[in-house]
Structure formats: C-alpha cells, structure tokens
C-alpha cells in the first residue's frame, strides 16, 4: 500500500510542473471530503477483472508493482514500476476540448542493482487522451506513450517501460488470488472513516522477462507484488510521511504493514495484514503494528536520514512476530525533484524467510504541504 503516492508524489510532481503548489490531492487534508468525488465506504466486494481496470470517478488510483529479479548469472536486482491515475477536477461542466484534463496519468520505474549500489529511474506523465495516455475501464490496461501495463486474457500482467539507462520488459503471473486489504478491501488510513481507500494486493507474482541495460538484454526471473488502490480522500491532516512494506514470504505467506507518521514523528495510524499459506488472513489494527529503526543511512545528496533497516513487529493470534528488514543496499533513495517527484526511499529489502520492498517517505521534508 504505497499510499506514499497519495499526497507526496503527485503533489511534488505537479508542483514541479509548477501547476500547483497546492496539489491535486492536497484537498484531501481538508476536513471534508472533496466535493464531487465518490466517497470510499465499507461494504463493497471486488469484482474481477473489472476492478483490475480503472475507476475514473475516484480521485486517485494506482497500479504499483515492486519485486525482486534474478539474472541468469545469479545477480539480484530490485524493480519498481508504477502507474498513477488522477482525476484533478470533479463536477466540472462536461469538457468539449479533447485536451480537457479530466484524467492525468503518471508513471514511474526504478531499478536497484547491488552490483553498482545505484538506483536508476525514469518517469512519464501525460493527460489522458488522443490514445497517447489513459487507463482502460474493465480490465488493467494503462498507457503513457511507450510505457504500458496491461492484463492479458489469461490473467498475466505485461509491463514495459523504457527509462534512461534501463528498459523493463516483464510478465507477472499471479500464483495466488487477490488479497483484499482492510475490511474486504476497505482500507482505513486515518481516524476519520472517509480517510480510506479500496485496496487489494497481488502478492507472489511470478516474474519472467528481461532487463535491458547499455543495450544488453538480460533475461530475468523473480517474484513481485502488485498493489491496486483507489480513493478520493485519505491522508489525515498533519501527516509527515509513512513507512510501508510488502513482503512475499518464502512459505507462501504475504505480509503488508504500514504506519503513517505525524509531523511530531509519532505514529498516527497503522495497519496491515498477513495471509498465511493456507489462505487464512489476519488483519492488523493500528495497535498491532510496530516499526522500530535498527539502522540509519544518511543521503549525502539530500541530507535526508532514513531508517533503512527496521524491525517490524506485528501482533498475530499466535503472538507477536518480528521481521527484521534489511535493505538490498542502502542507497535506494530517489531524488527526482527535478522531474517532479519528491525525495524518498523505495528499496528492495530482505527479511528472515521472505523478501519484499520498503518505502520510506517524508524524511527529507514533511510531505504535508
């Protein structure tokens, strides 16, 4: 659940485009839900494949894939590819111009290579329309120019993104049913019931494909995690950032946990779930999740200090279970302010009996506007 994206990424993206210091989603911090957008409420049931597709009435939505890859010669790589859909305005008069900004599309791809200790990344943005960018309704098919994520009729997801320095060409095959987060997909993000999203995950995706670097195409295999989330309003006022992790456990289990940090550094909200290999799901209340920093890394480029190694404790029925999260390498910070993104840390992490991704936001500066 990289709700990171909600305020931080889009805001920064758009602010850097200088269109708005006040972001698309900033109004989410207002006391009332933005007018004109549907409100996220409990009591729905996901329907597939329709819910793989876009929900254009909602304010924001994303297809967020992260995972570990292994090259033929046994090298580990981390990858992230994300598509965002934003509806900047609701309730406006029907637009006659084909350029009307009814839907905006953003995408972001990154590749972590421990051999270089560097993170490569690239991005795309466009207003939907003209066949150049858009998100299909009915099934997953999101496009921005030459970047595309789509679901094939057989259920596999095909992803292609060409960024400066690398190209991802991956097929993600589901091996487990979708995991509805929160209350049957209604995932709360704050104290108010409206601060929530519809949220499901596709853990344990089997990855095949290729990574091209410096013109050399290397076949890869691996395991990924796809998060699907849409909402109109969720970030509580006063939030500075959040920590999020999604872990594919070796026994077939899938763990997701997050906490939202206030500007005072304390946890404002937390949540998550663990699906056991047998399919039973344990859901966490805010009191069930605890993040404890174990090791810090300071970015020389931005000066930001991140808890890149953490101990995640979750309260299970069987008792408290602790996961030590160790990064693939420390320098997985993205400073993409120049191209409209915030400074944050998004990195591949290992844990005992599993692997996944950790997302740390709001450490360089509070993401609140």
């Amino acid at each position: 659940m990289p709700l990171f994206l909600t305020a931080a990424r889009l805001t920064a993206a758009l602010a850097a485009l200088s269109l708005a210091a006040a972001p698309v989603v900033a109004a989410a911090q207002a006391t009332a839900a933005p007018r004109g957008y549907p409100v996220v409420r409990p009591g729905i049931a996901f329907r597939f494949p329709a819910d793989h597709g876009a929900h254009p009435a909602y304010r924001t939505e994303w297809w967020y894939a992260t995972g570990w890859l292994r090259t033929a010669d046994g090298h580990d790589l981390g990858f992230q590819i994300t598509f965002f859909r934003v509806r900047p305005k609701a309730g406006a008069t029907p637009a006659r111009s084909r350029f009307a900004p009814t839907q905006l599309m953003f995408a972001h791809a990154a590749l972590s290579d421990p051999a270089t200790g560097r993170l490569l990344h690239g991005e795309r943005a466009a207003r939907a329309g003209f066949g150049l960018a858009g998100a299909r309704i009915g099934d997953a098919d999101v496009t921005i120019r030459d970047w595309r994520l789509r679901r094939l009729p057989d259920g596999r997801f095909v992803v292609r993104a060409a960024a400066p320095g690398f190209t991802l060409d991956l097929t993600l095959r589901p091996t487990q049913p979708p995991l509805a987060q929160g209350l049957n997909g209604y995932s709360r993000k704050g104290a108010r019931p409206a601060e929530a999203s519809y949220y499901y995950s596709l853990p344990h995706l089997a990855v095949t494909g290729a990574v091209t670097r410096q013109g050399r195409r290397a076949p890869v295999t691996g395991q990924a995690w796809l998060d699907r989330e849409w909402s109109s309003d969720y970030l509580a006022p006063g939030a500075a950032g959040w920590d999020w992790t999604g872990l594919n456990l070796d026994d077939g289990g899938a763990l997701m946990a997050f906490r939202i940090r206030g500007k005072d550094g304390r946890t404002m909200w937390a949540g998550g779930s663990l699906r056991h290999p047998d399919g039973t799901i344990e859901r966490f209340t805010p009191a069930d999740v605890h993040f404890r920093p174990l090791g810090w890394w300071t970015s020389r480029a931005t000066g930001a200090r991140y808890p890149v190694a953490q101990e995640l404790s979750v309260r299970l029925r069987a008792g408290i279970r602790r996961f030590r999260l160790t990064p693939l390498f420390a320098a997985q910070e993205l400073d993409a302010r120049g191209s409209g993104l915030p400074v944050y840390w998004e990195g591949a992490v290992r844990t005992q009996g599993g692997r996944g991704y950790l997302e740390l936001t709001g450490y360089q500066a509070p993401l609140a506007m």
Partner: protein
Amino acid sequence: MAEPGVVSARLALGWLIAGEWRAHPARFLLTALAIAVGVALGFAVHLINGSALASFDGAVRGVNGAADLAVRATSPLGFDERAYPRLSLAPGVADASPVVSLPAQANGARFTLLGLDAIRAAAVTPSLIGAQARGPDASTDALFDDDGLFLSRTTLAAAHAKTGDTITVAANGRRVRLRIIGLLPAVAEGQAIGVIDIAAAQESFGRLGRLDRLDLRLADAAAARAALPDLLPAGSVIASPDTVAQQGESLSRAYRVNLDMLALVALLTGGFLVYSAQSLSVARRLRAFALLRTLGLPRSGIVTAVAVEGLAIGLVGAGVGLAAGYGLASVALRWFGGDLGGGYFRGDAGLAFQPLAAAGFLGLGLAAALLGSILPARAAARAAPAAALKASGDPVDPRARVPWKPAVALLAAGGVAALLPPIAALPLFGFAGIALLLAGGIAGMPWLARRLLGPWARRNIASVPRLLAIRHLHGAPGAAATALCGMVASTALMIAMATMVTSFRGAVDEWLGEVLAADLYLRAEGGAGFDPATQARLAATPGVSALAFSRQLPLTIRADRAPLTLIARPLTGPSARLLVPVGRPIAVPPGAIAVWVSEPAQRLYGWNPGEAIRLPVAGNARFVVAGIWRDYARQAGAVVIDAAAYTRITGDATRDEAAATLAPGARADAVGRGMRARLPAGLRDAVSLAEPSTLRSFALDLFDRSFAVTYLLEAVAILVGLAGVAATISAQTVARSREFGMLRHLGVSKRQLTAMLAQEGALLGLVGAVAGVLLGGVVSQVLIHVVNPQSFNFTMETRVPVGTVLGVIAALVAAAAATAVIAGRRATAADAVLAVREDW
C-alpha cells in the same frame, strides 16, 4: 654621409607638421570631425540593427520556448489537432507539446496567449511553465483550472495587474475573465507572454479541434526530419527556431543593409573631406616639402609624414565617432525603437556593445583618413623639387587637356554593376554600382568644370571681378576639382536619396488614393470577426449602399520567411476595382481558383500569371495566378482570392474587415454610429471605424516614420557636404593672400576682390551643385530601379523632387559664396604691401 642630412630633414618635417597643426588646429579638428560623423553614424546604425535583431530573436525564442523543432500552422486557422498523436509518436520524436497560440489583449497590454498542456510543455519547452504564487489563494485546487492564467513579468506590468487579480482577456474575438495565478519566471524580461491550459484555450477562445503549433523534443533529429514531412497535417509547416528567427531577419534585412549603406556613404563623404583638406594642406606646403626633399628626405618620407597626419586624424575621428555612435544608438533606440521607425520589430531592444563591429568601423574610419591623406601626398611627392620650390601654383597645367577616360570607364562600370542581379536577396551590385558612379563622377569633375566654364572663359567679360573669378577657376581646374569632389559626392547622394524617397512616397500616396476608394472602413481588432449574421445586419445599416467584407490572415508559405497575407474579398462587383493591377490579367482555367498576387509576393515566390501555385490553406484546392497587383502595404507579400471561394474551401465565413460605399447624401460619421450600434455588444469595442482620409494620413505617417532615419542620415550628409565646401574654400582663399596683395597693387579694389571671391564661390557652388544633381539623378535611378525592387520588391516611377533640387543648388551656391567672402575678408585684411612681401 647622407645620414645627418636625412635626420635633420626628418626633424624639419616633424616641426613642419607640428607647426601646421598648431597654426590650423580648427582645420585639423574639422577633418577629424568629418571622419567622426561617418564612423558615428555607421556604428550607431549597426548597433541599433544588431540590438533590434537580438531582441526580436529573443522574443521569438521566448514565445517558442526553445523547442528543438515545431510543426506550425501556416495560418491563424490552425491545423487539425488529430495530427498530434501521429506526430508525437513519429520516429525520432521524444516528446511533443501541443500549443494554441493567440494574439491577445488585456487591460491595454498586448501579449501572446499560449494554451499549453503543462505536463508536455515541462518536457519540451520548460521555459513556458508558470510558477504559482504562494498565498492564501494557492491552497485552493487551482490545478488545471480553466480560468488560471500565468503572465510574464512584462505582461503583468503592462496590464497593470498583480497576481491574484482577475482580468478580462480578449483574443480570437472572445472576452474571457481569467485569474492571474502566477508568473512565468523563465520568460525573459521584455517578452509579453501569457499561458493558460490548452483545454481552456480551446474552449474559451473558440479554438476547439485546432492547434497552432506542436513543439517537438527530438531524440533523433535526422530520423525526425525524414519522417515528419509525410505526417504533416494540412496547413502546417516544419519550423526550427532558426527558421523562425530568419523570418524577422529576412523581412528587415534589406532595410537594415540599406541603412548600413547610407551610414557608410556618410563615412565615404568624410573620406572625401579628408582628401580635400589634405590636398590643400599639402599644396600649401609644397614648397616646404620640396625644400625638405633637397635636404635629403626621400619621396616616401613625405608620403609617410602626411600619412601619419592622416592616421592621427583618423584615430581621433574614429575614436570620437565610436563613442558618439554608441551614444547616438542609445538615444535613437529610446526615441525610434529598435527598428529605427521601420516597423519591423515591436518592443524594446537592449543596446549591446559589439566589439567586432567597433573594430570594423574604427578600421573603416582610419582607412578613409589614410587614403584621403596618402593620395594627395603621393601627388606632392611626385612633383620635381626644383619646380615646386619656385612656385606654389596649381600643379596642373591649364593648357593641358583634362583626361576624361577614367571617369567614363568608372561610370560605365557602375552602370554595368547596377544591372547585375542581387546576391542573397541583397542589392550588393547595386551598391557597388552606386560607389562606382560616384567615383566616376568625381573623377570627371576637372573635365566637367572645364566644359562648364570654358564658354565663359572665352567670352569677353566687362566686369573685372567676374573675369578674374572665371579665369581663376578655369585656369586652376585641379584646385577647383579638389574643392568640388566632396561637394559633388554629398550632393549626389542627397539628391539620389531625395528622389528615391519622393518617388516612393508619391507612388504610395497615389496607390493609397486608388486603394482607399470606399467611404468608410471597419476593422475588427484582436482576432475578433464579423459572423454572417453580423455581416447581414451591418449591410442593412441605413445609408450604406454597398458593403464589401474581407478576411485577412497571415499565411506561412515557407517556414523561414515572414508569412504573406491572404486576403479574401469579393472579386466581382464594385470592390474589384480596389486592386491596382500591374500588367494584364489572364483567364483562369475552369475549376481553379483565381489568385491575385501582389508584386512583392510575385518577386519573392516567383509566381507569375498563369502559373498554378500551392497555397497551404485547407484541402487540395487548385490555385492559378490570374494577375499581379501593386501593393506597398505588405512587404512580405499578399495574395487575394475571391471571398466566396475562400469560404467554400476553408468553411470560414468570418470576416474581419469591411469597406462601405455610402448612399448619396449619407454622412460617414452617422453611418458609422449606426453600424456600431448594430454590432453585438462584445464586438463593439473591438471594431474600429475609419474614413479613407484618416487611413491615408495614418499610412503616410507610417511611411514618414520609417524613413525618418533616412531623412536624418541625408541631413547629416548635406551638413558634412556643406562643411566640406566651407572648409575647402576658406582654406583655398586664405592660401591666396599673396595673389590678393598682387591684385591690390594692380589697382583692384577691396570691394572688387570681395565680389570676385563671391562670384568664384558661387560659380564653384553652381558647378558642384549641377554636377551633383546630374550624378544624383543617375544614382537615384539605380536606387529606384535596382536597390528598391531588389531589397523591398516594390517598383515605382521616378518623381523628381524639384523643390529639394533647387533648394540644394541654392544652398550650395550661397554657402560657397558666403564662405569665400568671409575667408576673403581675412585674406585681404592684411596690408597689400605686406601680403606681397610675405615670403618665408
């Protein structure tokens, strides 16, 4: 053993020169001033041109946001937006930013309103991205608001607005309230730009489905350039920042080069002045030089010495000239604007010092001064010392025949050069021809002076002063020619320029009379237009007997040339006579649309009657040139097609101009009020009404303004010429004090002497003026029939400015006579006995 002799001779020469300067500092300074004026004018004009071009270039690049390449609409009708994805995904194209571009106005400020997709522009033309002001207002969700406007600082100031204000923006005939939500920080100072969202631009300003530009960022320029031409939508061209800059450059280049040439002419005149002054100074010192020669100074020593004098004159003159030129340029920029009133550039131009140009003009000034000094010095050095020691008279024997062949050769060469075609659309051979004609004219002066004075010299003249005057001039043709050459050069140029401008102005005046045949004109400003309903309402205004609507829109034929004007107007009925045809029209084959091509368009694009041409306006209509018409208003060219045909092929029934013929007895102002009342409320303020007399005086005013600098340069040429005459004659007169003493001894009275000098001066002035006018007449023909058509693509008939010609002759005669008399007073003031005895 000659060494000590040479050294002492050099020393003596140094004293001589220093003494000369001490004795005649005014003459030295005047000569330097002549160079200074030439250098100053040339440098100033060059600086102003450079600054204007730079600012124009900056403005163009500012609006274009420095994209790698752009697909631009050939006319304000735009091109189909559906070409956007096709072009965006073309090979070699990394990204594409669609743009709607409209001339707009708000609170009296004119600016270019750009409709952009900020996300695309951020990748392709980041300088056009706005920064939203932070404030209480910024917390609202202003992103992609259809009323959010970003303004450049210059536009914000010109509109007397501040961030957060809501202003009414008029563009494309619509008036829309927009909220200023921020600035365009990357847009340079002085550039008037506003940016709104592209969807808002299309919806609010009536541009649905159309784009004016597609800015491209290229990944592979070669691949893109190969692929794009096949993908272009109708009504578009590919333009790079260079081609767009060339538009302004090409349009104004001829004007700028002509101004440069005029300034150089001033420098040339300065050179002649140095020549005159140095000739006299050398002639006066001939005996001194001869003495030095006998003391052992080699010939080259004299030439070197005089050349050093010239160098000093040149250095002082050019140095002062450069400083004055810079000052002049900054003053002129403030007063006239960057185009010196030519109307080519709008907006302010910052003045930038150009070291290379400065060095160039310094060199030219030095060259003029050096050449003007070395030529007479060489002549002096050739004189045999013994003969020169004996007398200081005119070295040319009056009995010898004056050579005329060099003059004829130069004149003939000038004539041939003038007939050669332009180089790079510039009349370089024309200017070379003018220079050769001038040189030929000056070379022919001694011969002409002889021819003109010969009949009088042979006649018996009773009046002693007149006899003496004529005999003197006839007997000393070299001295006369020296005095005359500067005068003739400046007079000729002056007359030529005056004739050209008079002819041009007369032609424009006459043309305006023919073109402005209607009684009342309406024009919708700022992209507004009359729709068919409004047209019908206007035509029904009481007092209007006929109303001809027309549409004018710029049409880009070639990306690197300024757009020509496409005019759609009824070509049948009474308005057809508004065209002034050149030559005979031809019948157009059925199915083709007849196009009337203006003279500049014909010359620019080589479109001749009967030819089928392509006009990038909607569809595959076949256009055939039906005839050529005279047009002085649009230097970039214009084409006229029938209004009905225009509407048929473009679907555009809007018109932006109308010419009304009034019913007998109707009053123009009353009908105008009636028409205004019939306009829709939104259009009332955007429509201007004018009577032909107003338009005519406005046009002529514009003409005069564009020639203001020409007039100024001309006036300077006249002043330099007159100063040259004065300097030369006074020097010659003062040098003749011994002759005057001798004449007094022979019984000539002081009054007679004065009369003699006055007549001598007047005769000299008359000869110079007549020669200058004749030469100027020839040069004016080169200007009118070679330089003008080749530079501006306008042709015209010659009109002689009789008043100016007579005035110039009178001024020259009077100036020459007056100077001679005044100088003569000084020369004859000394006691006659002393004057004769004066010997050195």
